[in-house]
């Protein structure tokens, strides 16, 4: 006979009753829907601000706002896209307006990040010897950073975060056609950069396959 544990005492009795049940449900839903995207948001913020402290502030502001307006989040739509949009708006408002110099890049820090990673990570996922696999994380990162912001942004949102064109168009407040052409032009520039790196290793990038 399995022992049931129905006799377990209620441990939540001490919880403050100040929070209404409704509020509690909202909190739970918020954690399930929104908080799980914190790493993505943090990475996006890092890319925008290029500075970990600013990135933290930005993410925090974003969640504060998101929580406050969580009721206006359209259930069933992409919460991550909604959060990204809020973050982007926050970024534009607080960093652009307060002339907080968004362009101030902490390159040393970025370098440190990447050096610490390089040591712990070995990429031998495929026995593929083509030039892409010779590229270092840091090089790909720098190549991406070298792009004009409008191109870098859409590539990031599309390739790294996996948003659809429609979601991206909404985030950057441009028509889908613009998103398309920015992706096209951005990738062209990016590839030229990557091939430069690859040439350094003596790879012939005029692919014959």
């Amino acid at each position: 006979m399995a022992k049931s544990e129905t006799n377990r005492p209620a441990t939540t009795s001490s919880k403050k009753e100040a929070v209404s049940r409704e509020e509690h449900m909202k909190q739970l839903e918020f954690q399930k829907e929104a908080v799980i995207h914190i790493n993505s948001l943090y990475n996006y913020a890092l890319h925008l601000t290029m500075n970990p402290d600013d990135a933290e502030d930005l993410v925090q502001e974003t969640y504060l706002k998101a929580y406050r307006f969580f009721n206006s989040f359209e259930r069933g739509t992409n919460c991550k896209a909604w959060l990204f949009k809020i973050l982007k708006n926050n970024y534009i408002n607080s960093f652009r307006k307060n002339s907080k110099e968004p362009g101030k890049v902490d390159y040393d820090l970025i370098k440190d990040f990447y050096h610490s990673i390089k040591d712990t990570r070995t990429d031998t996922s495929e026995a593929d010897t083509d030039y892409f696999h010779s590229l270092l994380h840091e090089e790909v990162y720098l190549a991406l950073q070298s792009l004009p912001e409008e191109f870098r942004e859409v590539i990031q949102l599309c390739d790294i975060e996996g948003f659809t064109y429609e979601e991206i168009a909404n985030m950057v407040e441009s028509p889908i056609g613009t998103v398309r052409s920015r992706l096209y032009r951005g990738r062209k520039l990016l590839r030229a950069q990557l091939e430069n790196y690859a040439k350094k290793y003596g790879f012939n990038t005029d692919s014959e396959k």
Partner: protein
Amino acid sequence: MNCNKAHVLMSVAVDGELTLKEEQMFLLHLSECELCRLEYEEAKKTKMIIREKIVRFNAPPSLVNMIMQLSSVDSKKTENSLSL
């Protein structure tokens, strides 16, 4: 469709965002144009490399904690349930 137009669509094709009509024209062109076929393979690789090689950072635990608290009991600033 000429190669120029195909090149523009390549980037869209890689993302699976072509309209049905575009896709038909694009595939038709690829079937006739060796260069564009190769180019398309390269375009796919470029996307892959970004996905694979861009390192993702974890949000600092202190930040995660802060956000969790924000959406748990509002004014409760007591213990950090997760040890840092």
